C-alpha cells in the first residue's frame, strides 16, 4: 500500500479519533484490518460486497462475540468470530460462502492485540475456506476508569460476524426429522472451550494444558452430509453445552434423549477442571463441537467419517433418542445410576468451596 506511514499515536493503542472517519481511521482500516484479510472483494472497500448469485436456497446467520479475555489457550476472539458463524451456517447443512465482520474497538486497545486477533481471523477464514468480504469498524469510548482500563486493556474488542451459505436442495436437516431409535453422536471431547476460558479467568493452571476447541466445522460436516440422508439434525453445542442441545431436542420433538456418561468424550484435564470449578461438563460451552442425530443404521458410517477427519478423531456415539414418557433427557452415569439433565440457568457459576 502506498499511503504514508501511519500517524498512530506513540502509545501503540487505538484512540477515539481512529473511529472518526478521517485519515486516522483510514490508516486503522488499511494498515491493520484489511491486509490480513486481503481478497478481491474486500480490497475494493466498497459500501457492500458483490457476490455471485447461487442457485437454490441461502442460509444467512449472525453472531456477536464478546469473550473475556480476548486471547486464551487454543484460540482468541478472532478465531471464535469466524468459526462460530461458519459453524452456524454449516450445521444448517449449508456451505459457507462469505462472511461480514463488524469490529467495535474500545479506545486503548493495543494495536499488537488487534493485529494478533486480525491474523487469527485471517488464519481461521483460510482454514474454513471462506473469505471476509465486507465489514465495519467503530471505536467507542473506554467504559472504565483509565487505571482499571490499563489492567483490562485487552478487554476492549467486540466482533460481530454474519455469514451466508448455500444450501443444497437435497439436504433436509431439522428437529422435525428426529425419530425414536436415532443415535446421538458428538465429534470429540466436550467442555474444553468453557473450561479453558474459566480456568484462565480464575487463575487455575493444570499440568496438561486445557485448550479451547474453537474450530470451523464446515469441512467435517460437509463430509458427513455426503453420506446421504442418514443425518437428521446437527447443532453446534456452544453456550449451554451439549445439555442445551439435548434440551432443544427434547422440547421441540417431545422425545426423550438417553445419554451414556462413560461414552461422552471428556479429557482427564477437563474432568478435573470441571470438578474443581463445581461445573457439569454437559453444561459447559464448546466452540468446535457438533451434536449429530443420525438414523441408527447410518451411525456406524457417520462415526467412521468423523474419525477420519482431524476434528473428529475422538468422536463417539453417546446415546440415543427414545419415545420414553415424559419426554426427558436422562443420563446413565459412570457410577451406573440415572439422573436427568437440564438446561442450566444463565451461566453456571463456579462454586464457593
Amino acid at each position: 500500500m502506498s499511503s504514508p506511514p501511519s500517524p498512530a499515536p506513540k502509545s501503540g493503542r487505538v484512540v477515539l479519533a481512529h473511529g472518526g472517519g478521517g485519515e486516522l481511521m483510514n490508516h486503522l482500516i488499511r494498515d491493520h484490518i484489511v491486509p490480513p484479510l486481503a481478497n478481491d472483494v474486500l480490497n475494493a472497500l466498497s459500501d457492500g460486497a458483490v457476490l455471485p448469485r447461487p442457485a437454490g436456497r441461502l442460509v444467512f446467520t449472525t453472531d456477536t462475540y464478546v469473550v473475556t479475555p480476548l486471547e486464551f489457550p487454543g484460540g482468541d476472539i478472532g478465531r471464535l468470530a469466524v468459526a462460530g458463524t461458519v459453524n452456524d451456517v454449516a450445521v444448517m447443512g449449508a456451505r459457507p460462502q462469505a462472511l461480514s465482520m463488524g469490529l467495535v474497538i474500545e479506545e486503548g486497545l493495543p494495536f499488537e492485540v488487534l493485529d494478533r486477533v486480525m491474523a487469527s481471523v485471517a488464519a481461521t477464514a483460510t482454514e474454513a475456506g471462506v473469505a471476509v468480504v465486507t465489514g465495519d469498524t467503530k471505536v467507542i469510548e473506554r467504559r472504565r476508569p483509565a487505571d482499571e482500563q490499563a489492567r483490562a486493556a485487552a478487554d476492549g474488542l467486540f466482533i460481530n460476524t454474519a455469514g451466508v451459505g448455500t444450501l443444497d436442495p437435497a439436504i433436509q436437516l431439522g428437529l422435525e426429522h428426529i425419530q425414536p431409535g436415532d443415535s446421538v453422536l458428538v465429534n470429540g471431547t466436550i467442555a474444553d472451550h468453557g473450561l479453558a476460558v474459566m480456568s484462565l479467568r480464575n487463575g487455575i493452571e493444570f499440568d496438561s494444558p486445557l485448550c479451547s476447541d474453537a474450530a470451523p466445522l464446515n469441512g467435517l460436516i460437509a463430509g458427513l452430509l455426503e453420506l446421504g440422508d442418514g443425518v437428521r439434525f446437527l447443532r453446534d453445542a456452544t453456550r449451554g453445552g451439549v445439555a442445551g442441545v439435548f434440551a432443544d431436542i427434547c422440547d421441540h420433538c417431545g422425545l426423550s434423549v438417553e445419554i451414556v456418561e462413560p461414552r461422552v468424550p471428556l479429557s482427564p484435564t477437563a474432568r478435573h477442571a470441571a470438578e474443581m470449578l463445581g461445573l457439569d461438563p454437559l453444561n459447559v460451552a464448546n466452540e468446535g463441537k457438533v451434536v449429530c442425530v443420525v438414523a441408527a443404521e447410518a451411525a456406524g458410517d457417520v462415526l467412521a467419517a468423523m474419525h477420519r477427519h482431524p476434528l473428529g478423531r475422538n468422536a463417539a456415539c453417546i446415546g440415543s433418542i427414545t419415545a420414553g414418557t415424559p419426554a426427558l433427557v436422562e443420563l446413565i452415569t459412570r457410577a451406573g445410576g440415572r439422573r436427568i439433565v437440564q438446561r442450566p440457568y444463565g451461566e453456571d457459576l463456579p462454586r464457593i468451596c
Partner: protein
Amino acid sequence: MTGRIADLRSELADLCKRVDRRVQIMEVCGTHTVSIFRSGLRSMLPSNLRLISGPGCPVCVTAQRHIDAAIELASRPGVVVATYGDMMRVPGKLGSLEAKRAEGALIRVVNSARTALDLARREPDRPVVFLAVGFETTAPATAATVLEAERDGLQNFSVLMCHKLVVPAMLALLAGEDAAIDGFLCPGHVSVIIGSDAYQPIVSKHAKPCVVAGFEPEQILEGLRAILEQLGAGRAELGNAYRAAVTDAGNRVALELLERVFVPADAPWRALGVIPDSGLDLAAPFERFDALARFEVTLGTDEDHPECLCGEVIQGKAEPVECPSFGNACTPLEPIGPCMVSSEGTCAAWYKYNRPSATTAGPAGAKEARA
C-alpha cells in the same frame, strides 16, 4: 458400572438388610449432595437407606440479615462489594445483589478472598468490602487476606463476616427434638482443614457414627458402608474414608490462621436461628476490618418467605418436594429460598437431577425448567 461400585452396592445391600430398619444418613456437605445427585447414586441405594442433605451449602445457610447488610453496603456511594458468584441471586428483603448490580451498584464477582484484596489494592480510592461466606474451607483464605491487609496498611479493605463452623451446626441439629439422623457422612473439603477428630463431640455426646468421605461415587459409597457397618454392630465411632486428603488433626497452618485472626461467635443461620459459637468474628486486633462497624450498618432481622421450607430442608426434616413452592413458585429461574439458588443447594440439586416422576411437583416443574 465399575466393579468396585458393584461390590460396594452389594455390600451396602447386605448391611442394610442386616440393620433391617429405615436408616437416615445426613450428608453434611453441599458438594456431596451434588455429587450424589449428579452420579445418580440415590437411584442405586437400598430402599431402607435414606440420604438427607444437611446444612452444608454456604449460600443456603447464610442468614437473610447478612444478605440485607451486603445490599445495604452495595447501596453506599462508591462502595465496591466483592462476592462469590453463588451469592448474587440469593433474595434478601430488598431484592438480590444481582438486581442491585443491574441498578448500577458496584458489585464484583470474585473467586477468592485474594481477588477481592487485589481489587482493593488496584483501586485504593474505593472502599472494597469482601463478603466473607463459607465454612472452614474458605475462612482461612479470608484470614490470610485480613493479615495481609493489616501488614500492608490497606485502608480501603474490609470484610462482612458471614463465616460458619460445621460442627456446632451438626450438634445443634442433634439437639432438636425430632432429629432423625442415624449417622453423618462428613464433608471432605472442610475436614481437610479441621481434621476428622473435630467430629469427636458428635460421637461422644450423641453416639452417632461420623465418617469423612471423598466426592467420587465410590468414595461416597465407601463412607456409607463404613457408617452402616458401625450401625449394624451397634457402634458409633469416628471414621475416615478419605485418608488421601484428610488427617486426624487437620491442616495446622490453616487452623492457626483461623485462631490468630478470628474468634468464635454466635451466628445466625438461615432458618436455624442463632447457634452459639457457630460463626467467626474478627479478633480484637483486626476489628477495624469489620465492614459492619466501618460503615455503621446494623444487622436486621430475618423474615423468610412464609411458604419456604428451606429451613426444614437444611435440617433434613423435609424433602424439597414437600415444600408447596418447590417447582411451582420456586424454581432455579425464580428462586424463593436459598436452597434453590445455590448450585449446591438441596432443592436446586433435586430439581435439576431428579426425574419429575419422583417428585410431587411432577412434570410441570421439569417442563418449566426446560422451556
